[in-house]
């Protein structure tokens, strides 16, 4: 599998990375190098092998449904780049 300039732009769009032309060209080469390196895995037969998502035998950790104190609104907004009253403020969506 080889990555084209179009693939780079598609993936950058999915990842919300506004790459410039220079970066797009550089990443095309670098991603191809790294993916070549990863091709090695195809030498290995993994037919019938179960995937390991997680090494610990822990599943579905629940807590009892009791309301607990959480962060104060002022704390939550303390690092906001922009705010309006108790809201995060962002540029237009449409």
């Amino acid at each position: 599998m080889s990555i084209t300039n179009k693939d780079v732009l598609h993936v950058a769009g999915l990842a919300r990375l506004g790459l410039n032309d220079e970066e797009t060209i550089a990443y095309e080469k670098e991603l191809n190098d790294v993916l070549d390196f990863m091709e090695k895995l195809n030498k290995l037969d993994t037919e019938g092998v179960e995937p390991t998502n997680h090494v610990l035998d822990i599943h579905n950790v629940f807590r009892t449904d009791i309301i607990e104190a959480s962060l104060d609104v002022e704390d939550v907004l303390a690092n906001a780049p922009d705010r309006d009253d108790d809201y995060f403020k962002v540029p237009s969506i449409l």
Partner: protein
Amino acid sequence: MGRIKEIHKQLLEKDFSAVELTKEYLTKLKVSESKLGTYLSITEDKAIEDALIIDKKIARGEKIGLLAGIPMGIKDNISTKGITTTCGSKILENYQPVYNATVIEKLYNEGGIILGKCNMDEFAMGSSNENSAYKLVRNPWDINRVPGGSSGGSAATVGAEEVIFSLGSDTGGSIRQPAGFCGVAGMKPTYGRVSRYGLIAYASSLDQIGPIAKNVEDCAIVHDAISGYDKMDSTSANLPPTKTLDNINRDIKGLRIGVPKEYFGGDEKVLNVLKKALAKFEEMGAIVEETTLPHTEYALPAYYIIASAEASSNLARFDGVRYGARDFDQKYVTDMMSMTRDEFFGKEVKKRIMIGTYALSAGYYDAYYLKALKVRTLLKADFDLAFKKYDVLITPVAPTLPFKIGENIKDSITMYLGDICTVTINLVGIPGIAIPCGFTDGLPVGMQILGKPFSEELLFNVAHRFESNNDFHLRKPEVK
């Protein structure tokens, strides 16, 4: 006796006060830091205030913890309330967490004194600390060489004795490799042993916080303090904190040591030091045998797929909305997000986000991510089999000596290959400790001791017995 117990005794006997100790360390740290680049922020005022509280406790005759008054450095991806936490990235340049990581709460409860936040590769992605968005870290044994990464600041600050211990984080070797390069002890605990609550996530199924110290006993004391179940981390193992100090001196006669041959393909100079160390273990009564972990060669590509995939998901949160930097010149929100991320993330971080996004995207998921998860199962089976026969496995920490600054930065694959001895350990979730096992060309060589899940107490014991037979941990670099 380690430094922590020694200082504890001196504080109780009033040889000096915690404030005096803190001031002395801050003075030394500032001079040394200017040469080594180990810190992204120094928390002088808070350190002195915290030390004053310890002195008042001592004056009132209150009981103080072993870590009370002990100067420490914290990797800058661990959340510290009210103390800037940048993760080595411009995107979090002015970010001040509003809560403490669980490990920080635990260290504060023990009275530890934070002197500052340690420099690191941006978002913990790197093996040389050259990916810090702020500045390089230099190896205290040779300032033209890298300290390793990504916890380069945390390892170099301990190596240069700017602090007594530090915390790092390890996703693919980020505690062990820099500990090896800087000639200090660093433990990557079993996945789930130490709470990750408040650690800025890189790859969630691999990340672990762990201690770095100049000697094994100090490293063990810190591990005991930070480990244990935490309800705030849903992947935390339901186990009490370790009590390593009780068993740290046990005899290791008859200990079965496996030496996996796949890990011995590196630089001859490194391997020669390792071989001498293994001979020392035999002298001490351990049984040393060659063994095999046959899937080792597949670990690196599997690691870079899994780590990048998880990173691409974890780093989606940095979008300029709730915290961190923002590009204010954009009219629409999606442009704001894309331009913020392009502008404030560094090159390596963007590259891993791209790789991870690609590996998880429609049509490629099975070929890359699922395949890597299956390889992970095979790697785990290799280790399960080896641990049926051996109590511990011993390998080098890295295939080379600390390399020169700039030597590998241009070539990703060469840089990634340097992680060959460490990444598998995160994929299979087991604990591993790095300690110095000798010197060559004036540079330290690190040895890695690996054990079954939750065998940290044994690893500290084995490391401590080895350390008791040499002076590597007592050598001091002359920074010049």
